[in-house]
């Protein structure tokens, strides 16, 4: 009998350990994916710098890779376009998103909230290609009538449409942050005779600040990395411009537009990987800092 019990125990331990190790191996796969993404980008980006000097890549103001005689690979126009589009969408999305969050978390009637929260999730779920389609056909026409832009498709149109993508991300994340603020803080503040706005602005928002900043950073990260909206709405002209009403080519749009036609192992091919690497590093930093801030918010309460 004792022998049998022992053998059962042994078999159990064997199965348990086997399961634990196989789970660990599967989890390691996720790490493996990120490492592969990073390594592969670096490996494919490095050959670009054998032909293009890092100086002309990072500070060159002309992106003209298809020129037969003298192709130029300067990332500055692409970077500026990405920056402008992100700036426009952030300027629209941050105030509206913040206002919407405060309404949703503090002011809205529970029944209104029960409808609005799914609505915001649905907005977040709309495929970016549909947003781009809308920008291309409708928003660009509206912008043309109102602002009389240089090009019909321009950075402004892309930025406005991107803000529709940023807002739901921002709202749902910063609402979590506001909800994590303990009730007792709010009640203590009311007990001191403050109005609702004073409680919101002096107690709740400061307490939720790390979470809200993280939400803003994550949504900016999404805007930087978004492809379809900008490729459809921004006109894709690779010239250096600071005019938001002129067309421009962002980093993501460059990859999407040019990867299909590029010859494998050409300088252009590697240059696109270099652009991808810059994009990867940019969003990685944004995400990493946002993650640290979110942890801080969690630890606080």
């Amino acid at each position, binding site marked *: 009998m004792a022998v049998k019990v022992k053998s059962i125990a042994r078999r159990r331990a064997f199965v348990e350990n086997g399961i634990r190790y196989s789970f660990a191996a599967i989890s390691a796969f996720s790490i493996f994916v990120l490492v592969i993404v990073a390594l592969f980008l670096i490996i494919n980006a490095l050959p670009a710098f054998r032909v293009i000097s890092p100086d002309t890549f990072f500070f060159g103001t002309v992106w003209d890779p298809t020129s037969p005689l003298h192709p130029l690979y300067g990332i500055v126009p692409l970077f500026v376009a990405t920056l402008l589009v992100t700036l426009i969408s952030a300027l629209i999305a941050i105030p*509206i998103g913040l206002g919407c969050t405060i309404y949703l978390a503090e002011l809205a009637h529970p029944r209104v909230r029960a409808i609005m929260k799914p609505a915001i999730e649905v907005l977040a779920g*709309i495929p970016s290609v549909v947003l781009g389609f809308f920008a291309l056909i409708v928003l660009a026409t509206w912008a043309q009538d109102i602002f009389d832009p240089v090009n019909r498709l321009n950075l402004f149109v892309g930025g406005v449409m991107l803000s529709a993508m940023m807002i739901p991300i921002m709202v749902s994340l910063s609402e979590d942050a506001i909800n994590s603020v303990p009730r007792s803080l709010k009640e203590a503040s009311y007990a001191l005779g403050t109005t609702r706005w004073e409680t919101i602005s002096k107690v709740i928002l400061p307490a939720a600040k790390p979470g809200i900043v993280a939400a803003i950073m994550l949504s900016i990260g999404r805007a930087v990395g978004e492809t379809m909206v900008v490729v459809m709405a921004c006109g894709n002209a690779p010239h250096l411009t600071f005019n938001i009403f002129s067309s421009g080519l962002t980093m993501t749009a460059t990859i999407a537009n040019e990867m299909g036609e590029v010859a494998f192992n050409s300088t252009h091919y590697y240059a696109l990987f270099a652009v991808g690497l810059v994009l990867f590093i940019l969003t990685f930093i944004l*995400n990493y800092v946002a993650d640290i801030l979110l942890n801080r918010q969690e630890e606080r309460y």
Partner: protein
Amino acid sequence: MDRKQKEKLLFLLFRLCALIVVATLVVLVGYVVINGIGVISWSFLTEFPRQGFTAGGIFPAIMGTLYLIALVMVIAVPIGVLTAVYVSEYSDQPLIDFEKVRPRLRRLAVTLHLRENAEPKRPAKVKKTRKRGSQRLFYRILRIVITNLAGVPSIVYGLLGFGMLVIFFNMGMSLIASAITLAFLVLPLVITASRETIEAVPYSVREASLALGATKWQTIRSHVLPYSIPGILTGVILSISRAAGETAPILLTGALVLKQTLPESVFSSYMALPYQLYALATQYSDATRPMQYGSALVLLLMVVGLNLVAIIIRNKYRKKYRW
């Protein structure tokens, strides 16, 4: 202006912000529905496109998208859910318990005549106990990796899929290359969603099971996972909708504008709804506009429908299990 008036004005502004957000959704969805509803018909859903996308239907694009998301799920769901189980259930244990392994290694070394059979002279170490939920290095790396994988732009995944899968592994522009790329993309979503629900199961449930003599795996299989299934399902459905709507990765890894047959195998190229919408809207004439509206509406219905299903499941079970 006294503080009451100021408050009223500000609250009005906040309400306005919320209204803008809702209005955006209504305008977007309304525009696509109003323009697309007239195009949708049985033949539009079941026919191949004809005459340069001005007649016929979008059947191959719908099927391509369905094939694609099925493949993505086959790859991403098992890996995602099992990783979530590991992260939430096993990560407080060391991957290899050296205290246990060391004597075994020693015995092995003795049997192989690699060393003398001598018991260690060191006094036995006091076993350090770890707090529950304390983080191991592996877990910490895993957490950083998962959060950062979620933020990598989809076009970068596309670049990876193109360079690594299509060219390096020689898969060609194919369903499988796109599916693996999209699986990388949705993996963090599946992991995060599953982890949250698994960790929401109260510890008392696990303790009760362990106290009855069940092993850890038995506890997970028959107690933790059944309670987390609705939450995991929600996460999976949301990831499906994300995968169905992504365009940038499939643009680089295998979607075609026009293909006269359905994909024959996982190694053949395919048509997909989001890519078809993109290509028609940017590269084709206005004569294809009805088909653009139709594709946009079908895609939107698919994605929004999946989202709604996920929200309904979540709300239903959130009421059922209230810990």
